[in-house]
């Protein structure tokens, strides 16, 4: 006993110290402000180019905020960043990124963009894996009173702000633009909108020109088609990790509930259809992509096409009567990872509509799609906006 007591005491002291340390570190994390949780993930983005239109040969710049979403350097921001480049038909376009506070600028590559919903994915090289990327949540789970935060750069100065979601619909009833009670200034578009735990639920888009404390955000779900591979990769990694820990699952193995959960998440991914619409020769081509090949596929869809009509005089836009509601047969791609539906005669239908309402134009359509799967399930209707060639009378 006499020999063991000091040892036991030392062991107790060691455990106690560990526990205290753990508590201290836990409380430090608990006390961290939401802004501190994301500040190292923010990216200051700058685009430089030479104008080839309007002010030919003049070097120009623009800036926005982005944020890291993966350890290998993918950054999500607003498509805005390229707006000026488009306007001046920029040449020699160069995007540079500064991650966190004070790091050296590095060159970034544009990976992909979704102009209608104002999202842009860019990538920088990761010399070492970035540890400070942000976790992506789901905006659909937000309620209107939840506190949301945003951080980014105003010019080169960091800013933080907080507010609430005001409305899950934006101007003219646009479902991909939510109204938030936050003041937004130039350059802040592209900033992450996140919860108190740092989980990203949206991307800041811009300010309401009429009200200084009202802004818009794009729900993070609209970035799914840009970052689908990341979400999928995350699930695969989790599945691999769980399998390593508890072995492959069998239906009657009660020890693998977590694995089953991950697998069902994967099934959810396999039923995750990303729709895209484009206008070609007066018809709308709807395509969907899914992350996992095979079943289920979309068998048929029901679609409702509503034009957004702009009055030439007042420049005000409102929704009009639906142009067409119909069923569409889906032709599934050979690789079983997507399919296509054609909505014919849309151009003609718009022309016909505009003939009866002189003094208006149509530059955008909203297509609502209800998908019926070959396994009999029916998915929630989704609305996608599509910019079309402006049609005057």
């Amino acid at each position, binding site marked *: 006993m006499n020999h063991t007591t000091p040892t036991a005491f030392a062991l107790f002291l060691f455990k106690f110290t560990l526990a205290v340390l753990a508590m201290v570190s836990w409380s430090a994390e608990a006390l961290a402000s939401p802004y501190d949780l994301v500040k190292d993930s923010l990216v200051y983005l700058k685009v430089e180019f030479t104008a080839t239109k309007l002010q030919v040969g003049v070097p120009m710049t623009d800036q926005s905020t982005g944020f890291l979403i993966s350890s290998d350097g993918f950054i999500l921001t607003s498509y805005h960043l390229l707006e000026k480049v488009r306007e001046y038909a920029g040449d020699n376009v160069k995007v540079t990124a500064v991650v966190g506070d004070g790091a050296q600028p590095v060159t970034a590559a544009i990976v992909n963009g979704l102009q209608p919903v104002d999202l842009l994915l860019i990538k920088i090289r990761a010399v070492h894996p970035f540890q400070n990327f942000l976790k992506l949540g789901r905006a*659909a789970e937000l*309620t*209107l*009173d939840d506190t949301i935060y945003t951080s980014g750069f105003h010019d080169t100065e960091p800013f933080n702000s907080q507010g609430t979601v*005001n*409305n*899950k*619909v934006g101007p*003219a*009833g646009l*479902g991909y633009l939510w*109204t938030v009670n936050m003041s937004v200034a130039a350059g802040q578009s592209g900033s992450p909108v996140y919860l108190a735990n740092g989980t990203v639920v949206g991307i800041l888009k811009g300010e309401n020109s009429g009200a200084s404390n009202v802004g818009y955000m794009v729900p993070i779900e609209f970035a799914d088609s840009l970052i689908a591979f990341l979400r999928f990769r995350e699930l695969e990694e989790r599945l691999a990790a769980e399998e390593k820990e508890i072995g492959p699952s069998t239906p009657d193995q009660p020890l693998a509930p977590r694995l089953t959960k991950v697998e*069902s998440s994967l099934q*959810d991914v396999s039923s995750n259809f990303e729709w895209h619409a484009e206008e070609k020769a007066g018809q709308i081509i709807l395509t969907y992509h899914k992350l996992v090949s095979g079943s289920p596929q979309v068998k048929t869809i*029901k679609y*409702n096409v*509503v034009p957004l*009509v702009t*009055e030439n005089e*007042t420049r*005000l*836009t*409102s*929704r*009009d*009567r*639906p*142009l*067409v*509601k119909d069923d569409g047969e889906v032709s599934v791609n050979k690789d079983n990872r997507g399919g296509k539906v054609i909505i014919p*005669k849309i151009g*003609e*239908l718009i022309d*016909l*509509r505009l*003939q*009866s*309402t*002189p003094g*208006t134009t149509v530059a955008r359509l909203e297509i*609502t799609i*209800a998908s019926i799967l070959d396994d*009999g*399930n*029916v*998915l*929630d*209707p989704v*609305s996608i906006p599509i910019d079309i060639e402006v049609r005057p009378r």
Partner: protein
Amino acid sequence: MSKEHKLSVATLFLIASTFVVRAGGVQPVYPLTNDRAPVILPYIPGIVLFRPNTKMIVVTSEDDGIRQDATVEGYNTADASKLFQLKVPHTVNAAVFSRTGDWLFVEGARDGEGFATRVRLSEDIHALGVVATVKLGKLPVQPSMSVDTKLRLYISDATSSRVTVVASSAFERAVGSIAFDASRFETQISVSRPVHALTIFPPLDLAFISSETLPRIAAVQLDRGNEVIDEFNRVLGKGITNGKTQFPLALSLSSGILTSDGGTTASLIVGDYSSSSLTIVDYDPNFGTMDIVATVPIGIRIDQKSMIQVDPLTKLVKQPLVIGGDDKQGTILVGSGYSTQLVQFSRGVSGTALERVREIEIPGPPTSISVSSDGESAVVAIAHSPELPILTVSEHATVLDDQATKIRQLQRELSELDLDVGSIDGVVGQATLTAVNIFNTFVGSKISVSDIDSAIKIVRAFNQKCPSSGSQCLLDSARSLRQAQATGTHQNTESTTSIFKVCSGEYERACQPHDAYLYCGADVGAWAKVRCNSYRVTRLSTSGGNKCGYSIDAVTCIDPK
């Protein structure tokens, strides 16, 4: 989305997908008149309300700011007999029936606090059922009310973005007690803005909420976390007349819009005072969208200067429009706080347009309007007047000017082709003329409103042959018209167009096969000009050689001389 959730959505969809939202069948149009002697009440009426699917109305006495209680009476509109009378211990600012009509809810104030009373009504109405009054957590301002299938009472407040939901059990507990405190039985729904008007469509658990601060109506799914499914915004284009004052949208729900295969869906009658327009908005459960069916000008005669009334305490703008409609929108009545005229509209015969039926004179500006579920009668509360006009269908009203009837008929036929004729009113306006022109262009006809009989005949014949939507048929017609014209032109071209191959160069023998030969440097155009009334020269080939090389031109000679 969870699997469970998805399945419930799927179930809803499968139920929903069995209807196609396009009003099927013919809705009757009942022109209403104010011919009958009004009921004279011993008080000024505040709210009038038809009991669903009956001829019975409920009338509440106006909140005059002095009395602390109110009278609630039931009348049979068929013979104007009184069915019951009830005193409630508070004023009445809002009233609503449950969907079945078995329960009546009234809400109001006493001593600055909010109260609600629920009354059970027996089928034959000669005996009043249980009456229960509860005290609300707070007094709502300019409230509107609605009831869901679980008899929960939803009360909105024009100064708050929270809707109070009072559980049915509060009223059950309140029986026999005075001023039972319902606040423990209340829950709140957060919406984005203060609420001007609220109405619920119980079969789909949908609430339609008109914002107090913006001209906007949201469709909110109550059984899915009060998610906003879609929004309707003011329709532009009819001229906003009231400067900076934003009037909220007035709203009335019709829950019996028939679909082509016998189902029903919800439809809103939306009144916009700012642009003086009336819009029908159908909720399409297939897509979760609020679809505009038609927008027309209200065109009501204004008797008093449009002084915008603002509540001195709350600074809220008072809604001037008063709207009532039946389940199938066969009878829609629109009144204004500044007019002694009601305008009757109908979704009527076509189901795709709003028909202006007639104007009805009443003794004063209306404060409340209710239309019976079948659309055959209506009742109107008049400001500052104990008279209660009961409007009924009259034979006199159906006699309309023959020419106007025919123009209406043409307008109906055109509107069924998705053409916008404005309101179907028997008046030839710009919209009707535009629609006639479009029809002529697309069908290749020459109809005119001056020859109305044959115009109706031609458009009706076109309609009867149309198997799909009207606009699709117009497009198909235009396409076959174009094809016919193109074929005609082509035949012409064959008969009047010749193509010559003309070779230019030093020696004719060195030319490739040709129809005519010209020497070096000759003008092919001049050659063609002599032979053709019009022509086109296309260079087919050139090759080097001899003095100037050789070239072959194709001369398309149209109408050779």
